[in-house]
């Protein structure tokens, strides 16, 4: 779909997913790294059989071509300008101010390439009192407010053990870049897309980031559930081989799921058939005016926990489908690796690297039909350092001898 468009991707580990999202939709994405390699090549984890090769970098450069370019050298910048002549997007995630220091600010490039869409990903945004702050996954999650909402209430707040912040920001960078493309169709001009990872992280709060300003109570963290007015409510339950997410509550939005749960309890002999008479959709309202037993719902919860404790994750997933419950297994990485659902959807893709190794990757994030035909999956392996120098710089008019010369001089 995006095959007419070229992306010059200057990101490091902080923004590297954005270009991949466009590559998976068909854009020609050229990852540009310094001659010594991106700092992203130093980010854990590393391949089990090759301790120096970053899986993180491979994960998010899959689907792109790769060149090297020393942007601190004026000849390197000339090479970049050559690439930008043919590019629609530039994406960067360097420390705020560094692009300007290299003479590559949005303003200067916009003057030279007025149609270029220039997307910047940073921890806090390009301007403002915290623009120069040192960002990190943890600090961004803290500043965006999801961090304080996460974790056990008797210990410090926690992040997700695979860092998430820059992924959210990169996702927004891809969307913002596409909006700028539509703007360019109207105006003929490119523009600057300024992504703040702090703002992106605020998405991960279910709107709670607004709580104080709306006059609502501050959300509180509670492991495996939520805390409402100081009262912890578990949203998970133990099963024989791990845990499940289990939501059961009365009320108009979700009470019917609780009714389904009662049906399963009765069918499986864990509750008396008389409970089938109870309607959890109206229960809360009735209990509030003394027309329903306030002890009833807690008892149903108790029955449910006892019953699921005698099952497995897989059994409960099937029950969830058969009875339409708000319930799901807490899958481990091992479970995900064996998931029949992912296998059926051909989520795992074996891709041959330049050195001939076959490496299994997660598939593209979406299944797409274009004109009712499956949209092809981008199976390009992650580029080795400078792998496409000859090919890409050749496309913008450099001879192999020139490229060789630039390489020997440390420009590539």
């Amino acid at each position, binding site marked *: *779909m995006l095959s*007419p468009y070229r992306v010059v991707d200057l990101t490091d580990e902080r923004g590297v997913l954005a270009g991949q999202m*466009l590559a998976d939709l068909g854009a020609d994405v050229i990852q540009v790294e310094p001659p010594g390699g991106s700092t992203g090549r130093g980010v854990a984890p590393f391949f*089990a059989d090759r301790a120096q090769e970053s899986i993180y970098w491979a*994960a998010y450069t899959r689907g792109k071509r790769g060149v090297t370019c020393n942007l601190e050298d004026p000849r390197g910048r000339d090479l970049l300008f050559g690439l930008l002549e043919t590019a629609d997007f530039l994406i960067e995630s360097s420390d705020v101010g560094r692009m300007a220091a290299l003479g590559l600010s949005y303003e200067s490039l916009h003057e030279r390439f007025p149609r270029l869409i220039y997307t910047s990903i940073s921890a806090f*945004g390009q301007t*403002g*009192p915290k623009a120069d702050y040192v960002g990190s996954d*943890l*600090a961004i999650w*803290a500043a965006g407010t*999801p*961090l*304080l909402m996460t974790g056990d209430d008797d*210990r*410090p707040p926690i*992040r*997700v*053990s695979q860092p998430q912040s820059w992924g959210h920001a990169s996702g927004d960078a891809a*969307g*913002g870049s596409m*909006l700028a493309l*539509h*703007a360019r169709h109207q105006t003929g001009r490119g523009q*600057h*897309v*300024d992504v*703040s990872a702090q703002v992106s992280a*605020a*998405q*991960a*709060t279910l*709107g709670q*980031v607004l709580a104080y*300003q*709306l006059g609502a109570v501050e*959300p509180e963290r509670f*492991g495996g559930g939520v805390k409402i007015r100081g009262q912890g409510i578990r949203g998970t339950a133990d099963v024989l081989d791990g845990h499940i*997410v289990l*939501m059961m509550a009365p009320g108009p*939005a*979700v009470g019917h799921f609780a009714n389904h749960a009662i049906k399963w309890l009765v069918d499986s002999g864990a509750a008396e058939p008389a409970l089938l008479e109870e309607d959890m959709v109206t229960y809360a309202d009735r209990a509030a005016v003394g027309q329903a037993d306030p002890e009833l719902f807690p008892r149903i919860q108790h029955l449910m926990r006892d019953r699921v404790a005698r099952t497995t994750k897989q059994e409960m*997933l099937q029950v969830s*489908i058969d009875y339409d*419950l708000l*319930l*799901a297994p807490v*899958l481990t*990485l091992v*479970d*995900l690796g064996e998931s029949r659902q992912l296998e059926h*959807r051909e989520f795992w893709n074996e891709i041959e690297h330049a050195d001939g190794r076959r*490496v299994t990757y*997660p*598939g593209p*994030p*979406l*299944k*797409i039909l*274009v004109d009712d035909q499956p949209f092809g999956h981008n199976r390009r392996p992650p580029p080795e350092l400078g792998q496409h120098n000859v090919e890409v710089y050749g496309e913008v008019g450099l001879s192999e001898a020139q490229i060789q010369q630039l390489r020997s001089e440390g420009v590539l």
Partner: protein
Amino acid sequence: MTLPVGSGPLAGVKVLDLSWIVAGPTVGRAMADFGATVIRVESPTRVDTARVVGPFHGDEPGIEHSGLYGNVNAGKWGLTLNLRVPEAQEIFRQLARWADIVSESFTAEVLARWQLDYEHLRQLKPELIMLSSTLLGQTGPYNQVSGFGSQGAGMAGVQYLAGWADRPPAGPFGPYTDYPAPRFALTALLAALDHRNRTGEGVYIDQAQAEGTLQLLAPALIDYKNGGPPLERRGNDDPQMCPHGVFPCLASEGRSESWVAIAVADDVQWRELAQLIGADASYSSDQRMQRKSEVEASVAAWTSTRASAEVEQALQSKGISAHVVSTTEDAANDPQLAHRSHFRRLPHSLHGETVIEGPRYILSDAPVEPTRPAPQYGEHNELILKELLGLSDEQIQDLAASGALS
């Protein structure tokens, strides 16, 4: 006839938004921000869960009080339709003909029962762009799993990966698969729109919200699938940084706790921090990892006698990543978020005023000024049915009598 056209990059783009809760509506909200005309369809018979979870205006629960619903539906036009009623299905078909993009999040195969799925809609309009977004996708043995992103978090591995190694999983906050999913969906819809405008070809997007979330776990997945160990939850530990964690600070008056997040990326930063807190500056990265408890205890001892904002300032001025672990009150007073005008106040007919978040990015040449809050139930029924579809008052009354609008 038409609805008022917005301004911005998507001016004139027409979106029929049948999705609910967060993942789908967030996509429509972004398109409305940038000028698209978005009709949000919902049925009061099956209340959108976003309307019954907080944060609520004034902490008062109520289906028109939800700040979450307001945040993901601002700028849309509201229509009530109960698609179980045949008359409502006919209205839906008319609106699908009007729309460039249809976005829905019914359990897989539900729309097909009403002959309103992509197969049928593309007969009406081959160039239609349609997004179907569910937890696990339209196909596969578990395509019938329905539920919220909290279930999605379980099935996308992220629930398992948030927590302490010695405790059961704590999970991330809320329906986590609703957070990455809209980024992938919006980007693809805008690519599809670009493609359709060039070629006239329609596009169908089958989104498994869990698969979008798995993109953010890709390094751990690739590691495991290629012979590495499966990643386990590890609190705030980082494989390459130490100290790295959330440290206690002096709580200000009226608060029960206060925390600061600190991440020391290299030896230079450690030397700066060690000088500040009086620790051994000579420790290398490996030594710090080996003596993690000792190192992090020395940081905690120093932070615990100071205010979190003071620690943030002190460390950032030395080039070390640190930030107050913000409450939502802190966010409301954050000068950086204020600088970006991130929080927007809008007049609201029930609440006097409401607050929503601004867009997730600032486009230098396409400023966004949200002007309308999220619609109340059926707020624009008459406008849409009468002005857009040309129905008479009598026809609208008949529709209402059939139950199509409830």
